[in-house]
């Protein structure tokens, strides 16, 4: 019942192609969340932006039919590993992790495999369990409902009310049945005197004391279904009593009285008063109540007169489905053999008959559609609009809530003119738990109006963010191929990308990267990580950093940097360091062009306060040539995007939790050092989306020199 009221969330079940924006071709997962660190943080120690070419100016965009490709990083949640139900120790030791890593090494992760769609997430969607030290995705967390509330009036609804009153707001919150806009309660105002229209008077217009629901967007109002309200509050209760047209629904008492009038003496015994008008329209409740009382009478009669079941006619009657004996026989099959033994002694109840009159709950289906057809024709002739627009759409009908006062099945109209206001569906706030250790990962404030969280362990606070930028050094990088759309990578030409890892935690982190030599799939591109092992400094205070800048001599002693690249070592300062080409005092810039050497193997490209960037070199496959040579058929969706699976392993030393610092345990842990520190490791697969392999435009552009 509550399947619909989830907050809009990431849908892992969607295939990648469905998530793509049809106009730009880019995936629609995160609107502008990912931005390079230089834009996301004002810190001046972020990588300089000015050496790298500006992507594309807006002027370019007007000419090209598509938006530029945005590089992306998706992370694979470990819950998709081979056996998700395998029991794991709550805190994964270094040993266990490295074994997991080895398992992963055996089979390269293929980002285009069908299953991968369900396990790849942008970093923003991922949580992190502090106790298991593991990434958790929306698929693997267990959710619990914190509270129910109405999205319109923001009133919290206790869960006991949900059980009794259902999952809709029972106050005055309604959606328009036509356009789902919010409805407002307004006075029914009497039209002003047309003679005085041209003289503006400021007196409040008179209202007749009744109220209506109206939609300010599509101008629907509840007067269209003939419903007005006496008071402006508790509209839900008033509406439940009103049928379309303004009649009140029958109460149970009234219905009883009416049935007595119609049915005369108990509809069970005498065989149907066929004289009754069979065309009587019963609303759903009345029909149900009539049927119920009819069958109750039948049952009590049958039990009373059951002894007369010896003759042949009764035996035949017992074979029908309507016979209580059949029912008891079927039931005895399931309830056991005990009833078989006393078969002979069992009294045979008499036959039951079906309802024959409206007072007994018979409702004839009216298959005569002439009135509907004339209504359609009338609509067209009176309004001049297409008659189709007067019929309710499937979505409109689906969003209608069942109304017991409505006429039964065949009387249901399919016109928009009979749609009733939709009470707002309640929403929930949910907390998330780790599936393994049951610790809470995310818990919102239970108060509806606050958007804060009590607990929220998001992965972005624990694992490094990876941002991608194409590296273009004037003079070194080959000029872009002519006729190549701006967001594509030239095939068979080495292209270099700068991956910037930004460390969110307060310890320095050692990163080890691994990729397959060629990307999986039909069009393998060659991949080389120039510096697969490096360190990212801790995410220290920004102010601390600024103070260090002022006092360089103390900075070199106080920083605990261990630069992997030897060339950056002597300079030692906490500012930007570029492998190979660094000249002290320059902070990069256009003047570098002449002396630029390009990236070196085994060396970090750049380094800052809490970030390190490295270079990855790719020789993209040519889609055209491979397709021709191997006859592999047309290029499938997503094959024209250069996606690289990358295994990331991060190691750091963390403060050990207090309960684990025990002399006996520290030795067993193996990784524990000097009491307070504990070695931690985390390893996961991620996917780097670097760029398009060819023009993904509709002009049939084919790149590649053939």
């Amino acid at each position, binding site marked *: 019942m509550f399947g619909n009221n989830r907050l809009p969330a990431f849908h892992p079940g969607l295939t990648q192609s469905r998530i793509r924006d049809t106009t730009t071709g880019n995936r629609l997962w995160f609107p502008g969340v990912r931005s390079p660190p230089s834009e996301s943080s*004002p810190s001046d120690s972020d990588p300089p932006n000015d050496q790298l070419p500006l992507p594309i100016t807006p002027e370019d965009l007007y000419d090209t039919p598509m938006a530029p490709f945005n590089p992306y990083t998706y992370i694979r949640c470990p819950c998709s590993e081979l056996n998700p139900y395998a029991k794991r120790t709550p805190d994964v030791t270094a040993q266990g992790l490295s074994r997991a890593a080895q398992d992963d090494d055996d089979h390269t992760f293929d980002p285009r495999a069908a299953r991968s769609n369900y396990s790849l997430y942008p970093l923003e969607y991922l949580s992190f369990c502090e106790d298991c030290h593991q990434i958790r995705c929306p698929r693997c967390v267990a959710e619990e409902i914190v509270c129910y509330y109405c999205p319109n009036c923001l009133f919290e609804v206790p869960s006991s009310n949900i059980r009794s009153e259902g999952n809709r707001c029972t106050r005055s919150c309604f959606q328009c049945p036509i356009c789902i806009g919010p409805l407002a309660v307004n006075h029914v105002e009497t039209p002003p005197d047309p003679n005085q229209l041209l003289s503006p008077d400021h007196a409040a217009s008179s209202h007749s004391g009744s109220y209506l629901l109206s939609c300010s967007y599509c101008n629907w109002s509840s007067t269209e279904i003939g419903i007005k309200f006496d008071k402006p509050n508790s509209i839900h209760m008033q509406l439940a009593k009103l049928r379309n047209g303004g009649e009140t629904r029958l109460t149970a008492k009234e219905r009883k009285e009416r049935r007595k009038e119609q049915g005369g003496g108990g509809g069970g015994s005498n065989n149907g008063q066929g004289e009754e008008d069979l065309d009587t329209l019963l609303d759903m409740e009345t029909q149900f109540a009539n049927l119920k009382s009819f069958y109750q009478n039948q049952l009590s009669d049958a039990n009373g007169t059951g002894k007369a079941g010896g003759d042949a006619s009764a035996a035949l009657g017992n074979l029908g489905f309507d016979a209580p004996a059949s029912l008891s026989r079927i039931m005895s099959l399931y309830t056991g053999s005990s009833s078989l033994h006393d078969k002979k002694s069992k009294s045979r109840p008499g036959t039951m008959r079906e309802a024959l009159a409206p007072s007994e709950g018979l409702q004839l289906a009216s298959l005569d559609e002439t009135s509907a057809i004339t209504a359609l024709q009338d609509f067209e002739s009176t309004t001049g609009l297409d008659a189709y627009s007067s019929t309710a759409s499937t979505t409109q009908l689906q969003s209608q809530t069942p109304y017991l006062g409505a006429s039964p099945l065949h009387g249901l109209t399919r016109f928009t003119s009979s749609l009733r206001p939709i009470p707002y569906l309640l929403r929930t706030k949910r907390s998330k738990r780790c599936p393994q250790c049951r610790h809470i990962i995310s818990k919102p404030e239970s108060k509806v109006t606050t958007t804060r969280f009590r607990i929220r362990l998001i992965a972005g606070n624990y694992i490094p963010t990876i941002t991608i930028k194409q590296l273009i050094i004037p003079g070194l990088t080959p000029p872009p191929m002519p006729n190549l759309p701006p967001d594509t990578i030239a095939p068979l030409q080495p292209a270099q990308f700068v991956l910037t890892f930004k460390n969110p935690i307060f310890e320095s982190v050692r990163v080890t990267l691994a990729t397959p030599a060629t990307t999986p799939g039909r069009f393998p591109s060659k991949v080389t990580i120039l510096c697969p092992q490096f360190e990212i400094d801790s995410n220290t205070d920004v102010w601390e950093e600024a103070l260090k800048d002022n006092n360089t001599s103390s900075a070199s002693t106080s920083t605990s940097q261990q630069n992997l690249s030897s060339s950056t070592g002597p300079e030692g300062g906490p500012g930007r360091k570029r492998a190979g080409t660094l000249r002290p005092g320059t902070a990069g810039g256009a003047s570098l062009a002449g002396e630029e050497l390009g990236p070196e193997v085994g060396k970090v490209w750049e380094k800052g306060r809490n970030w390190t960037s490295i270079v990855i070199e790719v020789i993209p496959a040519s889609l055209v040539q491979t397709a021709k040579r191997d006859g592999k058929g047309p290029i499938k969706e997503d094959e024209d995007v250069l996606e690289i699976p990358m295994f990331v392993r991060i190691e750091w030393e963390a403060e050990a939790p207090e309960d684990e610092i025990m002399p006996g345990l520290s030795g067993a842990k193996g990784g524990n050092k000097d009491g307070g520190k504990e070695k931690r490791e985390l390893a996961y697969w991620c996917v780097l989306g670097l760029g398009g392999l060819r023009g993904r435009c509709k002009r049939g552009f084919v790149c590649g020199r053939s």
Partner: protein
Amino acid sequence: MSSATPSPDPRSSAHGHHKRHSILPAVSQSGPKPPVQFSSSCTVADSALLTGPHTIIVSTESVIHPRARLESLGGRVTVGRRCIVHERACLGAADLQGRYHKGSPDKDGRSMGAVTLGDYVTVEVGAQVESGGTVIGEGTTVGIGTRVGAGAVVGKHCTLTANSIVAAGEVIPDYTVIYSNGLRRVDKRGVSDLKNKAQARQIDVLRRMIPSNPAKFQ
């Protein structure tokens, strides 16, 4: 990096007691100055833009907001009584190809004019009413960013919700609501008189707030 982009911030110089200035560039009156027929009670803002060779008629108590454009390049533009033309709305606009359509002559051979607004019409912000015999009926609201194509005839008391599009030459019956990407329905509320009354009241407020300078255009 973000601070490097020099952006003229109008607030940065607001240390004195300056009047709040518009961020938009000053209105430049370009093109021919049209002959106008203004009612004595209408409100035409100083920075409204009126261009074109043909007559522009603004009737009793109508309000033309600042930076509203009235272009009579395709023919006469008539604004009825108690209309409100909001900012950056354009009456008599060119079509998407940049052409100004001329209104076809009616039965008597007179030109239909470029745009004719009935009484109590509201043209909201940024709406474009193309020239070429386009008629908008009494009490109709042309929503924000809506485009009414050349020669379209919109009936009385219609509501064109924001960003709707009425095709050129289309005839919209009275009391039609165009909503949600072109869906249509009939407004059965029967509150057109009330709406007209509310419009009159709104105009009363607007007349006090918008400094009128019809003499500038005469």
